[in-house]
């Protein structure tokens, strides 16, 4: 069949090339209806045929037979690859089918948001235009890399400079060129200065064109050229940036505005801030100008992509230099966009992230900057709560609570005066009245962060004659015990309770402390969802780290439905620990459990909990009906043994997350152990280089460098060391492994450990034998 392949390629290419005048007549110049399908599911319109044919060309251009033949043609012609006749002809056809169809042109003029999302490839609308872009950016780019761009630029020089060239052809060229540069950028490929110069000349000529689409396309494509330009071009970007800002607020055309928006955002993204910072205030002013021209609630009501792009532009402009933005309207614009965008999930997510970055940027500049930010935003936030409660715009309230939580979490310690007294009342109202998890969760964390960061201010706050402690305990009580609040809405209550216990202490809490802990223990007895169980248990876990025996004594003394509190809590704890999530939480949990074990308290040992799953070999697949007939059964083991099992499991997980098998984990652990003092010291600072040296130099024969596996893992460690985020986890894993190994060593020396050891499963014993010698 192979001989047919090239013939087929040629026939289809000729066909689509011959059909282009008809396509022009029906779809480019007139608004013929496209993508029609008959009753039998057969598509029968020319645009669908164009898509099929272009896709076909796209895939058959990857066939060896076709490439060989085309390469032969190139060689015979003697011309350079980018100028070769067949490639230029192919691009000619691609430009013809990339022209904006009349129907789209009319639709985009009515709704610039659709134009923006299709231009930034955020839609699934597949058209001949997008099919051409696929062919050029995927098939041709994979074959010729940046020579594809050279070929496009050459095509423009050869064919698109004539008077008779239509704006749609030039716009189509800019479109394909832009898509190609985006692809190059994703491949980290830069163009040569000559090519960039040519592209900038070609696009600059149309920045003021009378046609909106051509003008807009020129702005976008020009801005993209800076994303693939070599060093030295960024200074030349100031002029284009200014004209993109002007296009963004051009009162004549919403299309040009959308293109200016894309272009400015792109400039902010790629140019060094030393270049863009001088334009910060004009960009912020332009956003205000744009929002004055286009009403968020009216014209832009459904324009979520434009709104997201505006938020990104505002965010990037503000982050250029946060020291001046409080003198501008930037924060007002942010809250303007926030109060409008809160109801859209995607937009409100972006708003939350933006605010978090802002708060961090202000905090990084020191407490004074942060206080200024608070002065600016607290009235807006409190206003948002107010508006939210009057208009029952619950989404606005959710977002406001989220923003307050971020403001407190990333704020300076202590929080500025007035923070709690202004923001606590609306939060308190929400926490005492709402039943909706989407506002209760952020409101709970907001209170918890306020208490942690602004402790003295928080404790001094009072309302309606009640102290803040009393009010907070009432909130916790409601979240824990009220029948109208489901578990998922109260997911954050445990961290609030922990903050209360941690920050207030027994001297402030007095008898409230035991009431609070009792309420948590009682609620645990019936808790069902893992995150909620984890949240509540963390209250006891953090206490147990400091005072394990107090926790055990306290729990032993309370009674829940006729059982001791200790039994209720330990059972829930040990049977759910394995499902806990969050790095810090898991680590904290392990330490807490180890402290409780180390008490060697007979009351703990007397509690029986689920141990291991009993595997019954029925020889049958476990279907749902089988599961009902033979439910899972577990061994029953003492709580102390269960603690050992959990800690061994965690030790294995933490150790093998860096090493593929236990032997290499042990080798590394020994290496660490031998230089314990060194590595403890170095772990504080930058551990990358030091760990590596520790491993290599203190191997004392236990580390077999001739083993390929060990070598690879060591190389992996080095590789991880450079700015990789894994690295942080690895250091933390190291600490967990080290803590547990030392703990097991200590316990192993104590009386009675061998009895416990004997009750472990062989694979658990092996973990200890391998890791803890």
């Amino acid at each position, binding site marked *: *069949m*192979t001989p*047919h*392949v090239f*013939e*087929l390629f040629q*026939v*289809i290419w*000729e*066909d689509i090339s*011959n*059909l282009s005048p*008809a396509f022009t*007549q*029906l*779809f480019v110049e*007139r*608004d*013929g*209806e496209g993508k*029609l399908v*008959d009753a*039998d*599911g*057969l*598509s*029968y*319109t*020319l645009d*669908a*045929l164009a898509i*099929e*044919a272009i*896709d*076909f060309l796209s*895939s*058959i251009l*990857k*066939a*060896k*037979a076709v*490439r060989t033949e085309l390469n032969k043609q190139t060689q015979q012609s003697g011309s350079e690859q980018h100028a070769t006749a067949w490639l230029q002809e192919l691009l000619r056809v691609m430009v013809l089918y990339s022209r904006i169809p009349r129907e789209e042109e009319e639709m985009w003029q009515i709704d610039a948001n659709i134009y923006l999302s299709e231009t930034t490839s955020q839609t699934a609308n597949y058209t001949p235009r997008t099919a051409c872009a696929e062919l050029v950016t995927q098939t041709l780019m994979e*074959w010729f890399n940046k020579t594809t761009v050279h070929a496009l630029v050459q095509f423009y020089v050869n064919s698109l400079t004539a008077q008779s060239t239509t704006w749609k052809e030039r716009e189509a060229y800019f479109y394909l060129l832009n898509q190609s540069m985006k692809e190059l950028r994703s491949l980290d490929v830069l163009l040569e200065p000559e090519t960039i110069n040519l592209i900038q000349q070609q696009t600059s000529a149309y920045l003021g064109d009378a046609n909106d689409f051509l003008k807009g396309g020129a702005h976008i494509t020009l801005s993209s050229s800076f994303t693939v330009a070599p060093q030295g071009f960024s200074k030349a970007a100031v002029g284009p940036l200014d004209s993109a800002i002007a296009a963004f607020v051009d009162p004549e055309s919403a299309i040009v505005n959308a293109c200016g928006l894309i272009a400015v955002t792109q400039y902010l993204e790629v140019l060094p801030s030393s270049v863009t910072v001088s334009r910060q205030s004009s960009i912020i002013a332009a956003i205000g100008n744009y929002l004055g021209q286009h009403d968020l609630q009216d014209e832009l009501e459904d324009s979520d992509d434009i709104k997201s792009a505006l938020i990104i532009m505002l965010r990037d402009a503000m982050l250029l230099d946060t020291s001046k933005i409080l003198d501008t309207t930037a924060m007002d614009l942010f809250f303007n966009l926030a109060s409008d965008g809160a109801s859209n999930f995607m937009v409100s997510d972006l708003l939350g992230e933006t605010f978090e970055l802002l708060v961090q940027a202000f905090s990084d500049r020191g407490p004074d900057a942060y206080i200024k930010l608070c002065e600016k935003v607290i009235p807006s936030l409190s206003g948002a709560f107010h508006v939210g409660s009057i208009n029952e715009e619950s989404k606005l309230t959710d977002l406001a609570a989220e923003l307050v939580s971020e403001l407190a979490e990333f704020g300076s310690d202590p929080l500025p005066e007035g923070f709690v007294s202004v923001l606590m009342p609306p939060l308190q109202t929400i926490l005492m009245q709402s039943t909706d998890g989407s506002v209760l969760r952020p409101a709970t964390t907001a209170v918890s962060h306020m208490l942690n960061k602004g402790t003295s201010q928080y404790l001094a706050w009072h309302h309606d004659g009640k102290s803040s402690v009393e009010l907070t305990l009432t909130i916790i009580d409601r979240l824990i015990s009220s029948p109208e609040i489901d578990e998922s809405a109260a997911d954050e209550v445990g961290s609030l309770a922990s903050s209360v216990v941690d920050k207030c202490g027994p001297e402030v809490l007095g008898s409230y402390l035991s009431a609070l802990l009792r309420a948590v223990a009682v609620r645990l007895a019936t808790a069902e969802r893992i995150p909620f169980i984890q949240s509540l248990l963390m209250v006891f876990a953090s206490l147990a780290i400091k005072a394990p025996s107090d926790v055990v004594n306290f729990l032993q003394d309370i009674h829940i439905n006729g059982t001791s509190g200790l039994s209720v809590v330990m059972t829930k704890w040990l049977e759910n620990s394995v499902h806990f999530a969050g790095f810090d939480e898991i680590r904290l949990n392990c330490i807490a459990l180890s402290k409780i074990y180390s008490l060697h308290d007979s009351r703990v040992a007397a509690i029986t909990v689920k141990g291991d799953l009993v595997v019954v070999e029925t020889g049958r697949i476990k279907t749902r009906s089988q599961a009902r007939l033979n439910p899972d059964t577990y061994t029953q083991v003492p709580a102390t043994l269960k603690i050992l099992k959990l800690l061994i499991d965690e030790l294995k997980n933490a150790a093998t997350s860096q090493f593929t098998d236990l032997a290499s984990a042990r080798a590394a652990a020994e290496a660490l152990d031998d230089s314990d003092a060194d590595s403890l010291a170095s772990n504080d600072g930058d551990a990358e280089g030091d760990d590596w040296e520790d491993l290599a130099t203190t191997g004392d024969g236990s580390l077999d460098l001739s083993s390929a596996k060990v070598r690879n893992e060591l190389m992996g460690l080095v590789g991880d060391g450079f700015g990789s985020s894994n690295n942080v986890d690895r250091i933390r894993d190291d600490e967990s492994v080290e803590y547990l190994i030392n703990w097991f060593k200590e316990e192993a020396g104590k009386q009675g450990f061998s009895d416990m050891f004997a009750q472990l499963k062989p694979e658990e014993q092996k973990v200890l034998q391998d890791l803890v010698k």
Partner: protein
Amino acid sequence: MLNTSQTDAAIQGALRVLYELVDSGLSDEQFFQVARDLVSALQNVTINGNQNPVVQAMALKVLGACFDNLEQVLATEYAPAVKAFLNESMHSWMSFFISTLKLPLPEVSGADFENANSVIQQWKGVVALKIQIIQVRQRHCFPQDCKRH
């Protein structure tokens, strides 16, 4: 019916039923038993026939569904037989495909374009047929001719 019917309507009706059957109704074994006859009947309608292009397009749609099924069979014990069969039948289709793709669209005058949608209806058959040819060829690109460079 495909071999004996005279009218487009009858053939089109038969093709609709066949499409449903091939697309979802038949088991692998059932399908494999009739595949050869079915494909040659479809050839009758298209390559040898003189039918309306819409009917030919429908026949190719059924052919596409047959190839889909055959490719699933490629994973079974029938694989060698199926491969031979596919190669053999592809050969006879190929020249039909190529000559059909070369067909021009029915002539329309410049003035006719003023009513774009009526031109679209006029071209329906040929365009639908070309689309089906490309889809059949596209979806069933056999390893030897789609070998990557």
